């Protein structure tokens, strides 16, 4: 009975060593060949026939998309810049510099696309968070967006308390009464520090003035 688990442990260990060896060799080979070298393909990797875009890893694909968006925006930027007064070489107008920037932006956007499509300077997969980590990031960004939308209506104090409440509630395992207490302390405390002590003017919203506060 005891031999079987030891055997399987050994097998697992052997598999790990082989995997490590393969990875190490791939790394050394990749280093030796440099970033522009021909790509290494394992059996798991797809066959590289067909359009190049289909075989890009997620970082390269992401960079192609960023490059295309950047190219579109830069063309729009250049067109707007060309509509501005250009002046002359000796008396440059306000549009001359943006034209130069727009031209450079278009070239750089093409470099981004070309680099992602035809070289392996930057490769890999985008490590977007997964599971609970993804939930926390989405929650944090959504709460921040909610705060920005609510601020003019609720005012700094109420919006800050609600914002901290959401973050305490979902990022901690504290009981509800502690969440409420902490969010009141942080939300009101930080806001009061800036509004009362440092004299920063923040939106009052519509609720507190209605209550005469």
């Amino acid at each position, binding site marked *: 009975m005891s031999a079987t688990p030891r055997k399987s442990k050994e097998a697992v260990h052997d598999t790990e060593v082989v995997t490590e060896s393969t990875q190490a060799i791939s790394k050394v080979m990749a280093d030796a060949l440099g970033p522009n*070298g021909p790509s290494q393909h394992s059996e798991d990797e797809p066959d590289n026939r067909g359009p190049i875009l289909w075989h890009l890893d997620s970082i390269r694909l992401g960079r192609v998309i960023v490059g295309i968006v950047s190219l579109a925006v830069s063309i729009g930027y250049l067109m707007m810049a060309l509509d501005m007064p250009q002046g002359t070489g000796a008396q440059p107008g*306000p549009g001359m510099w943006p034209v130069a920037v727009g031209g450079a932006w278009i070239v750089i956007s093409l470099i981004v696309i070309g680099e992602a499509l035809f070289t392996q300077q930057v490769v890999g997969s985008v490590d977007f968070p997964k599971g609970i980590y993804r939930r926390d990031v989405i929650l944090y960004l959504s709460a*921040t967006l909610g705060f920005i939308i609510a601020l003019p209506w609720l005012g700094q104090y109420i919006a800050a308390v609600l914002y901290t409440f959401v973050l305490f509630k979902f990022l901690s395992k504290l009981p509800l009464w502690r969440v409420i207490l902490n969010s009141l302390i942080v939300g009101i405390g*930080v*806001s009061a520090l800036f509004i009362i002590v440092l004299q920063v003017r923040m939106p009052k919203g519509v609720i507190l003035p209605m209550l005469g506060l």
Partner: protein
Amino acid sequence: MDALFGFLGGLELALQPELLIAAFLGALLGTTVGVLPGLGPIAGAALILPLTFNYSPAVALIMIAGIYLGAQYGGSTTSVLLNIPGDTSAIVATFDGHQMAKKGRAGAALTIMAVGSFIAGTIGLILLIFSAQFVARFAINFGPAEYFAMTAGGLLLLARITGGSLASGLLPMILGIAMATVGMEMATSYFRFTFGNLNLALGFSIATVAVGLYGISELAYMLENKNRDAKPMKVRLRDLPPNKEEWRRSITPWLRGSFIGFGFGLLPVPSATLSTFTSYKIEQSVSKYRKELGTGAVEGIAGPEAANNSAAIGSMVPVLVLGLPFSATLALMLSAMIVQGIQPGPLVMERHPDLFWSVIAAMVIANVMLLVLNIPMVGLWAQVLRVPRHWLIPIIMLVAMIGAFSVTRNQIELWILFVVGIIGYLLRKLQFSLASFLIGLVLGPLIEKYFMQGLFIGRGDLGYFVAGPISITIWSIVGVVFVAGLLLPIYRWVKARRAAARGEVVEVKHAALSEID
């Protein structure tokens, strides 16, 4: 002697309560953001920048300088205690620092790092005091062509070197420069890219963009960090003093690191990070105990830690004397000068000597404060690592959003903060360099100004920009770096193919296998 008298005058000013408090708060906040994994000096400076607009220019500059120096002190604490570097300049500290901690020498490692930082800071400041006037005198005859070459050429070099690949640095750089063109053009009062929205007339606030780029995206990174709940080792006060042998072995690496770091600080490169790797490499070559490096050798932390602090001081020379920031934190420092109505450049020393020397003197004071804050209170900084993220994130975000709103007291600042934060997060995920984004935004208007002045003086002749020896030298260096950047990968690829044809790859395989064995 002028420098010494200037410094003594600055010291008198820096001892006034307002500037002392600014130095202390900067040092404290800097150490805090340095200690906290995920947050760095850029986020710290970005958070504090809008709040400094109500105070004198010296307060703003001293606080940002204090944050920059403090973050270098604090950044390595997590490297030692958690094996997680606080920022990129603290990566090297994990090699031997954490190994020392595993051997029960965490306290000694932290003390050696703090004392080394202090020594390097002091050496760096002495070099800064005596080199600043020389550089300023040299630069005072520069015209628009030289400034254009230094700002545009320096930015291109920085984008090329920090980015890794060509596109990784250039795209964020041009995004920053393009964003800087939004708003009213100062010479003609012409509105550019505002789409009729008066809220954009003043352009994008650097403070808001910086908080969005680094604040929002760094907190998102903190949340998705799988080590976010890691607990650091405990460090007791009695564990702090290094033994005689450790003190003795630290001295020469500290001195070597200090000079290496200062030299790197003067260059348009990510100086704090590069100087630590260079210092480590040099210790590997020249140290008597080089065989111990990587196993918890004192030299592996003493040299690099001194180097990154000295680099931070050295990088103040270009920003304070020439108005050229070579890091995102220093770009914020330059932005603080511009917002406060101070024209950056070599004339700062002449026109605002009180400001210049009080900032330098306050940095000396901040360096002493940091030593006091870091050695006896190292246990406290280890406790900071235990503060749960559900406390940190709401507090930091509320401060960030209030700070951004206070810039123009306009809701649009919060929208810019959020959108730029999302863009920054995505660009980081795709391995673009954000530093060149922010520096592009800060330097963009200056580059445009020098470009326009150059065209005006040269009567539209572009040859004016390469007429002097300084501008020719700078553009030649830029050209060499870019051409080399294009040719080197091709050369490596050809070399590798030839090697493969000769069957050398088989040897490489054997080498890899023997390494694993």
